[in-house]
């Protein structure tokens, strides 16, 4: 593996973290969906480059799954859901963008600090990959925490899953069966959530998750 090869891999994995930040920054529904599609496309490129570097053809399939399902089908479906729910307006974030970004920076620093000493024995490349994957994961969690809207929470969840795939490709020898089943479980989760969204709206007339607190007797 030449320096340039690993540099490109590094660049792609780093871009994924960057796009995660873009997701946090977006406060409009459709822009959020587009950025999510970009997230999946960057992931697909990253995985495909890994496949090329590791000479692992099954990773190409993973990349294709990411590109097809998460880069095209899920964003398109979410687009339709958003239109049908009639929520294509500004998302209310619980915390405003500035502090969220700073908190995200903290999470990235944390994952670097945690991952680098933990994986001393692994190769330099895997360590970087794992550090970035953990950052993407934590940023996905942050997205789910800071958003009230159910659809943006779904996107947070999906971007989190992208982080898992990135981690999986960094670690050599992950069997294809596992990857495909992870991919499908996400798809199933997406279907369940999609149906759920409409059920929530039917019941509470909104997809703001605060409304659910009331029925649990927590607020007001």
């Amino acid at each position, binding site marked *: 593996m030449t*320096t*340039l090869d*690993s*540099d*490109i891999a*590094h*660049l792609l*994995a*780093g*871009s994924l*973290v*960057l796009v995660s*930040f873009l997701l946090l*920054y977006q406060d409009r529904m459709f822009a959020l969906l587009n950025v999510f599609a970009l997230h999946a496309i960057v992931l697909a490129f990253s995985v495909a480059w890994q496949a090329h570097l590791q000479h692992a053809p099954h990773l190409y399939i993973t990349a294709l799954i990411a590109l097809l399902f998460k880069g095209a089908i899920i964003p398109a479906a979410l687009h339709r859901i958003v239109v049908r729910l009639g929520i294509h307006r500004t998302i209310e974030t619980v915390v405003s*963008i*500035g502090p969220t*970004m*700073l908190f995200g*920076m903290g999470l*990235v*620093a944390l994952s*670097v600090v945690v991952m*680098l000493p933990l994986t001393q024995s692994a190769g*330099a*490349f895997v*360590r*970087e990959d794992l*550090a*970035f994957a953990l950052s993407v994961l934590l940023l996905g969690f942050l997205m789910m925490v800071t958003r009230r809207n159910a659809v943006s929470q779904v996107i947070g969840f999906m971007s989190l899953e992208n982080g898992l795939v990135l981690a999986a490709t960094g670690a050599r020898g992950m069997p294809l069966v596992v990857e495909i089943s992870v991919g499908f479980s996400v798809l199933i989760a997406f279907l369940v959530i999609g149906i759920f969204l409409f059920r929530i709206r039917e019941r509470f007339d909104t997809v703001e998750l605060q409304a659910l607190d009331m029925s649990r007797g927590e607020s007001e």
Partner: protein
Amino acid sequence: MMLTWLTQLAQAALVLALAPLLSGVTRKIRARFLRRQGASIVQPYRDLLKLIRKETVIAENASWLFRAAPYVVFATTWVAAALVPTFATGLTLSASADLIVIVALLGTARFLLALAGLDVGTSFGGIGSSREMMFASLAEPAMLMAVFTLSLFAGSTELSSISAYMLGPNAGLSISLALALVALIIVSLGENARIPVDNPATHLELTMVHEAMILEYSGRHLAVIEVAASLKLLLYLSLIACVFIPWGTTLVGDGALAYAIGLGAYATKLTALAFFLVLFETAIAKMRVFRVPDFLGVALMLGLLGTIMLFVSRVR
């Protein structure tokens, strides 16, 4: 020794001579993008000549600060612009004045301009100064973070060394560099009052920032401030060119031909950057003033992220 001084002086003269031309070129390209004919590219020189010949009107209650500020702003900006290697590295002052000094010089210029805006006591000047300071409080740290990223990457804060390092075999591709580049572009859009942040061509009271501060200036004072503004644009474009597209720059010890190549490469780079700047400007709408902190905050965040990622890259 003699040669480095010569390069330094040539460089200082070159930036001063080129700065209005760069403004002219960007205006021309912009006009062509908008399907207008546009003024000639030497129009800024004519404007400056006209302003110098005109009478200088000064408000009654203006203090000495108001009269002194344009010259200090011009001097600091000129020195800062002369410190960025444009066509050749190995400038005499490079060793004593690094990137952080350049940021400090620009900060000084901004401080004085804001004071001058407040000096006469008109409300527009006050608005302009307060907005400029609001933007600066984010743009300056963002610039410094980008500078830190570059310095950590190249192992030096001197621009000549950074440029030489980028040309060398060790540089390679890095996500941190990409982040620093984007941060630097955002900062330079903000600092030069370009479109998403401020519109250099408008005199609409509600939106202007830079123009509001210099509203009271006329005659030779205004001419000097205009030159300083175009020098600042030249500085940022040269900075981006010298760090991120260093190819063609003359290194220390090259022959006379290398200097000719360096000059040609520099002219090409500037034109290309001006083209992309205008392309971006015509494609985007101006932001609301209160959205700008978010935009500049992104630059700060990118700089920070670049520094963090540098530590990940350093592992190997």
